[in-house]
C-alpha cells in the first residue's frame, strides 16, 4: 500500500545548520494497516509525513502509494491518494467559510473543479447525515462559519473531511496533541470508528506512548531519521509502556513520550 525506499532528506545542506532529517528510511505499510509512529523530537516523524504527502521531495529514495510511484508528484496531485490531519486544528479547515462549504471542498478531493454550484442540494443531505456521526450537533449548523467552532469541533470536522471522499491513505500528524485531554479522547475514539468502518490504511504520528500502544496494529519508532523498530500483531497488542522504556529508554530522551 505504502512503500518508502531509502528515503533521505537533508535540510539546509552545506550550512552549519545542516540537519539530516531522514537517513535512508525504509517502510512498508500493508493495506488496512493502522501504523502508529513514535520517536523523540527531531526523529523525523513529521518529515516522513511531509515526504509522503509531497510537501517537499526527498533528496534520495522512492515513494510508492498503491503501487504508483509518486516520488515526484506535486502535493496537490497526490490529494486523490491521501487525507491528512495536522496538529493545529486551524490548519484543516477554511475558517471564514461555512461548514457545508468546507465539506463540499473536501468532497471533491483530487478532482477537477468546475463552474457548477459548490454546495449541491443532493449532497447537503449526505453532509447532514455524516455530521450526525460526530454527535456534536453540527448537522444543524451547516451554514455556520467554521470560525465559530471550538478546537475539538474543528478537528472532528477535519477528520470527517479527510475521510469524506475515501482516500486510500489517512495521515494523522499528532492530531489530538493540541486538544484538552477529554476532547482528545473523543477525537481519538472517533478516529478509531471512522478508520475501522472504512477500513482505511492509516499512519498516525503521536507524542503519546499510551496512545501509540493502545491504537493500531503496527507500532514503529523512528530515531535520527531511521526506523528503530517495528512491532506488530500479537507482540504489539501485549506491549506495555514499561517494556518499551526498558528496551529503548536510551533513545527516548523526550520525557513527554513517557507520560
Amino acid at each position, binding site marked *: 500500500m505504502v512503500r518508502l525506499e531509502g528515503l533521505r532528506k537533508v535540510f539546509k545542506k552545506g550550512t552549519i545548520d545542516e540537519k539530516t532529517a531522514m537517513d535512508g528510511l525504509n517502510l512498508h505499510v500493508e493495506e488496512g494497516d493502522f501504523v502508529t509512529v513514535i520517536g523523540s523530537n527531531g526523529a523525523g516523524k513529521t518529515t516522513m509525513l511531509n515526504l509522503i504527502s509531497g510537501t517537499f521531495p526527498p533528496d534520495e529514495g522512492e515513494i510508492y502509494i498503491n503501487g504508483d510511484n509518486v516520488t515526484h508528484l506535486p502535493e496537490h496531485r497526490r490529494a486523490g491518494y491521501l487525507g491528512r490531519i495536522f496538529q493545529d486544528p486551524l490548519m484543516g479547515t477554511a475558517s471564514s467559510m461555512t461548514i457545508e462549504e468546507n465539506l463540499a471542498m473536501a468532497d471533491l478531493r483530487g478532482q477537477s*473543479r468546475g463552474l457548477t454550484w459548490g454546495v449541491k442540494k443532493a449532497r447537503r443531505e449526505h453532509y447532514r447525515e455524516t455530521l450526525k456521526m460526530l454527535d456534536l450537533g453540527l448537522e444543524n449548523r451547516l451554514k455556520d462559519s467554521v470560525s465559530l467552532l471550538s478546537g475539538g469541533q474543528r478537528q472532528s470536522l477535519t477528520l470527517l473531511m479527510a475521510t469524506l471522499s475515501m482516500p486510500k491513505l489517512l495521515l494523522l500528524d499528532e492530531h489530538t496533541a493540541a486538544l484538552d485531554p477529554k476532547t482528545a479522547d473523543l477525537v481519538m475514539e472517533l478516529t478509531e470508528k471512522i478508520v475501522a468502518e472504512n477500513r482505511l490504511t492509516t499512519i498516525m504520528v503521536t507524542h503519546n506512548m499510551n496512545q501509540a500502544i493502545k491504537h493500531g496494529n503496527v507500532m514503529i519508532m523512528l530515531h535520527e531519521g531511521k526506523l528503530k523498530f517495528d512491532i506488530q500483531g500479537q507482540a504489539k497488542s501485549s506491549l506495555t509502556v514499561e517494556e518499551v522504556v526498558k528496551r529503548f529508554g536510551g533513545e527516548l530522551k523526550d520525557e513527554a513520550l513517557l507520560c
Partner: protein
Amino acid sequence: MLFSGFMLTVPISLEQGLAYALVALGIVITFRVLAFPDLTVDGSFPLGAAVTARLITMNVDPLLSILAAVLGGFLAGCCTGLLNTRLRINSLLSGILMMTILYSLNLRIMGRSNIQLLTVDTFLTPLENLDMNRFIPMIGFFFLVAFAFKILTDLFLHTQKGLAMRATGDNEQMIRTLGVNTDNMTVLGLGISNAFVALSGSLVAQSQGFADVGMGIGMIVIGLASIIIGESLVGVRTGKKSVMRLTIAALVGSVVYKFIIAVGLRMGLAPTDLKLATGIMVILALGLPALKGGREGKLHLRGV
C-alpha cells in the same frame, strides 16, 4: 445656493461611484478573497482606458474595444500572478513591477500621454444623446453594470472553482492537500480582478471623454478606501452570505467615497490634495483601532 450645490454632488458621486465600483470589486477579489495585496490596479485601470481610447480612435467598434480592454486587464493580472507564483517574487513587488511596466506599455498603446474621446462616438454616446438629463441614463447604465458584476462575482465565488479560490486565500495549505493547484487559483483571481479594473478604466475614459496615462495613480488607495468605508457601513462577517456582504460593501463604499470627496471639494478641498486626503482617510481607518486598543486592537483585515 449652497444647498443646490450639495444637491448636485449626489448625481455626480452616484455616476462616478458606480463607474469606479468595479475597481473596488476587483480589489475585493484580490485583497479580501485571495488575501493578495495586488497593486497592479494602478496600471491596469489606465490600461483599460488606453486600449479602448486607442481602438475607438482607430474606428474599431466600441464594444469590441471594451472587450479588448477587459482582456488586456485579465492578462496584466495574470502576469502579476505568474511573477509571484512561478518566479517567487514577493506579492507587493510583483504588483509594483507590473504597474511600472504598464506605465510604459500604456504610453506605447496610446502613442502619447492623452487621447480625447469627446469628438468620437463611444459606447456611451447613444446614452448621452438621449433626450433627457445626461445623469439619468448614465447612472442607470453604471448601476446595471456594477450590479451585474456584483451578482456574477457572488455566483462565481459559490461555484466549485470559487470555493477553491476562497479557500486559497483562507487556508492555502488545506486546499492544496485537497488537490487544488493554489498557484493557478492565484493567477486566475488576479486576472479576473484586473479585468474588472480595466473594464472600469475603459468605461470611465468614455464617460469623462478622455484617457490619460496618469489616471490610475493612487487607484489602489482609492479602491481600498472605498471597500473600508463600505465594510464599515455594511458590516462584514464570516460564513453564510459573507461574499454578498463584501461585494455589496464594494459598491456602497465606492459611491459613498465619491460623495465624501465631492462634498470635500465643495467645501474648499483643493483637487490636488485629493490623494493626500484619501491616503489619510485610509491611514485613520486602519490605524485608529490600533491607537485605541493597543496591539490587540489592530484591524486584521485580509490583504492589508
